[in-house]
């Protein structure tokens, strides 16, 4: 363990960094190598210290007031330089809207292969990283490995469990850096409403599809979600065709894995199913007995959501009192 090789993780999202550290620890142990995390930001010494407790052997800390917020070129240059110096074998990058293009550009600079959106990661008998990802619009899960190093994979939020915090020996290394000048300028940033928790975090989700007749009827689903302490989502047609909402659940939208997913009037096209496949229990309520959603549901009710959803709500209300 001379600092060469090793498994590295980076995400500008702290929770995702922790989740990748959990999986990264497993990969590093298998390869008998070091696990490192990169932390970039302003006043992030505490976070860096904490990452050791989550399993990092080494934390590269780049702490500067100019790095408060994500900047593509600056972050890219920093990670590239660290990688050129210490030659990681595996780089796991958080697959966010900023993280994925970062991984793509980093891979290009390091002349590396990149496997995006891995929902599972392992080491094969040739000590290569193997990533599994959903492909062909949800029709398949591909197992992909690498032919060269470094091996770059991106990891979506909630793909892996956050590890337990425990005593672990590791060092925080303050690293030098140069800020690569930005090629774009963020002129305005409007935070999205944060009143509701991110749907990826929800323990239960009630979602609506084409079976909803009008936008306001979402209130019906909200009533049920409220009793469950969960959130409401929808399938893509309500966004794309009807323009009722801006976010959908599915392969190209939010990928969720709640304990309970209740699909109301959702037909269950494969792209939608790919976004909910890791839910613990899936319930389908649909008028059409032939709807493909029933094939992937644990519990199915063939019936009118306008009747079944209130009935379920009332029954749950009674039982949970």
């Amino acid at each position: 363990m001379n600092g060469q090789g090793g498994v590295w993780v980076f995400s500008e999202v702290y929770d995702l960094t922790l989740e990748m550290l959990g999986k990264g620890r497993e990969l590093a142990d298998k390869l008998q190598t070091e696990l490192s995390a990169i932390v970039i930001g302003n006043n992030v010494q505490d976070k860096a210290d904490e990452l050791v407790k989550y399993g990092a052997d080494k934390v590269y800390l780049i702490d500067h007031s100019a790095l408060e917020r994500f900047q593509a070129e600056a972050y890219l240059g920093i990670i590239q330089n660290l990688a050129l110096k210490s030659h990681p074998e595996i780089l796991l990058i958080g697959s966010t809207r900023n993280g994925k293009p970062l991984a793509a550009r980093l891979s290009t600079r390091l002349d590396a292969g990149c496997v995006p959106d891995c929902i599972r990661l392992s080491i094969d008998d040739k000590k290569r990283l193997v990533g599994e990802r959903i492909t062909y619009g949800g029709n398949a899960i591909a197992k992909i490995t690498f032919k060269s190093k470094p091996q770059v994979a991106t990891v979506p939020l909630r793909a892996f469990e956050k590890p337990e915090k425990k005593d672990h020996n590791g060092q925080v290394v303050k690293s030098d850096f140069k800020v690569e000048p930005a090629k774009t300028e963020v002129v305005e940033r409007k935070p999205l409403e944060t009143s509701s928790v991110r749907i990826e975090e929800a323990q239960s989700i009630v979602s609506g599809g084409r079976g909803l007749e009008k936008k306001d009827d979402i209130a019906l689903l909200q009533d049920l979600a409220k009793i469950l302490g969960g959130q409401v989502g929808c399938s893509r047609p309500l966004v794309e065709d009807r323009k009722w909402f801006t976010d959908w659940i599915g392969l190209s939208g939010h990928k969720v894995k709640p304990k309970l997913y209740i699909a109301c009037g959702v037909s269950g096209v494969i792209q939608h199913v790919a976004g909910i496949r890791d839910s613990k229990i899936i319930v389908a309520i649909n008028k059409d007995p032939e709807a493909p959603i029933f094939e992937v549901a644990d519990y199915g009710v063939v019936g009118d959501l306008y009747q079944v959803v209130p009935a379920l709500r009332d029954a749950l209300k009674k039982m949970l009192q």
Partner: protein
Amino acid sequence: MKQAVDVSQLKVDPATRQLVTAGAPKKISDFDKNALEESIKIREKNAGAEVFTLTVSPEDAKVVLREGLAMGADKAYCVVDPAFQGVDTSGTSYVLSEMVRKVGEFDLILCGDSSLDSFSGLVGPRMAELLNLPQITSVKKVVVEGDTVIAERSLEDAVEMVKAKMPALLSVTREINQPRIPSLMMIMKASKKEIVAWTLKDLNIPAEKTAAKIEVLEALAPKMERKKIKIAGETVEEIGEKLAKALLQEGVVGR
């Protein structure tokens, strides 16, 4: 523009869970159609501008190229080479970048944010890097003002307005527009437009540049093992109660 497998028409061999990709219908990757539509809109507002499409493919892609021309592209460039079978995002972005260099001067490159079939979302940013361009991803609105492009992009927790000097590369989402459906007239007109076909040799691309850095070991239809229990009853109240009870027993509701 990528000629992608039409994923909605894919079949699975139930015995082996293998996808039947041989002979599967192909079409322009949806997101790329949005990119083309947006380019045409920008051209409509900027007299003298031209729209070119660039495609790399392991097999003939004429139908797709013609469709792009019918939608309104002025000219199509393609590199068709069996060597692209199994090419990854590293090779694809390299060849596309070399094509851009050979085509010559440009103001904007628009890509789909991801492709319909592989859904990687890496080719755009990789090209931006190879061509040393400013890049903006997840774009849902574009305005061109003089030599500047301003784009609105959706992030998980915010919407950003991002400015870049052109030339620049943008990756667009499907929300950005509704791609036009070409009329018969446009289809007829497109048959007279030029398709420039190059080989890897024309671009002086050595074989190692298209060698894949990753290898797909298998691609199988996912197993979805679900209980598939149908809940029925005399009245809707009864159904509601049965379902509620089942969920309680599963331990997925309540505390």
